[in-house]
């Protein structure tokens, strides 16, 4: 989980078995004034789209990527393999940006 303190400092590659979580300094917050969600990160503010919000809400360090995709496939009535591929690619991008750890 605590990747950044690992001195080897390798890039994390997201797999179906990864258990992504948001580090304490990353904040997914609803902004009532603007009526939208924000991800607050070091000197960065992101505006996640609805799918990213659903994925991020499930990144608790316990659910695996496969668990998350399975749930989303059910909720959106979509093929699991497609959702799984999209979820992995989005989480890889978020991991590269430092928004999630896995």
């Amino acid at each position: 989980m605590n990747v950044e303190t690992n001195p080897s400092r390798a890039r994390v590659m997201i797999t179906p078995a990864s258990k992504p979580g948001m580090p304490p300094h990353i904040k997914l917050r609803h902004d009532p004034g603007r009526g939208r969600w924000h991800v607050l990160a070091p000197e960065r503010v992101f505006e996640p789209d609805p799918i990213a919000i659903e994925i991020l809400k499930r990144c608790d360090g316990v659910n695996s990527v496969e668990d998350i995709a399975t749930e989303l496939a059910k909720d959106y009535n979509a093929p699991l393999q497609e959702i799984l591929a999209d979820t992995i690619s989005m989480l890889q991008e978020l991991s590269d940006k430092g928004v999630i750890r896995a």
Partner: protein
Amino acid sequence: MNEVAPMEQFSEKPLVEACARAPVGLLAELTHRCPLQCPYCSNPLELDRVNTELTTEQWQDVMRQAADLGILQIHLSGGEPTVRKDLEDIIEVAAKAGLYTNLITAGVTLTRDRLNRMKDVGLDHVQLSIQDVDEANAERISAYKNGLAKKREVGKWVREFDMPLTINAPIHRHNIENLPNIINFAVEMGAGRIEVANIQYYAWALKNRASLMPTRAQVLKSAEIVEEAKERLKGIMVFDFVVPDYYAKTPKPCMGGWGRGVMNVTPQGRVLPCHASESVPGLEFDNVKDRRLADIWLNGQAFQKYRGTSWMKEPCRSCPRAEIDFGGCRCQAMAFTGDATNTDPACKLSPHHQAFVAAAEAESGVANPPPFVYRRMAPAKATAG
């Protein structure tokens, strides 16, 4: 996932015109006091004195007002913000108000206990500046002894407390050749982010421009080094690369556009559209002691003056990039052309562009640049304040 353009981002993406939108960031210059004397300091030449600084309660009120106004991130800066003994009390109120708190520090006056307490009261992120990774050169640039060793220590504490660390490296002719080592230093320190920030020439940096300006070849080389490192360190360290606009063809969208996303509060409480805007004549700056932050943002004369595009002359007025770069920087237009409503001389369409580039080329081409004029507070005057 879209990113809301931060203050230092060079975004090609057109931004939606929305003059009355709320700001996303506030730079709080808590003090102008600093133990370092870097010749490129972004503080104004005339520094605010300690006895004129806002009180703890006044800064805490600024934090609450900022959150109410819709500001998301607060950048606690200076001078050196940690010389204020009440920094923790300000952070605590900012964090409770829901602001994302960012400490911008040189680190040399920080202790482990204080950092630990800052974390406890809700500090989210630490940005640590370095002058160079060569000890002697770092000392020469900052006029401060043993700074680098102290910075290493501070970086370790930040990581020990599992806080995110950004290394901020201002780049100029005296350290640009060390860029690969600077990047390695940031990786070793466990930084999740590095700012390779070429000096922007305002205030002290403008005064020292002839001493600091790198050559075009050096800048191009540094861009290659950053591109290669970015790819190699993908998923390990995020890069922010701030280019020097003297060698650019289009100007930077300074502050993401005047009065569009960011505001700045000086140690005395003056509210500015950007930290250098006091160099532009004809602006009236309101003070948080007299007026609410939201009122200043929406109606303050200094914010309204260059907000949007209606103030523009040609070539900006009919330019397809008018709402991308907003005519560049008003302060640079003022400093170099004598008229703040001119297009930024960094723009190739400016009639002053050639002279602007020629100045950089001439100064950077000199083998022995002039000595630094170090950033120092002027001797106290009887009528100071």
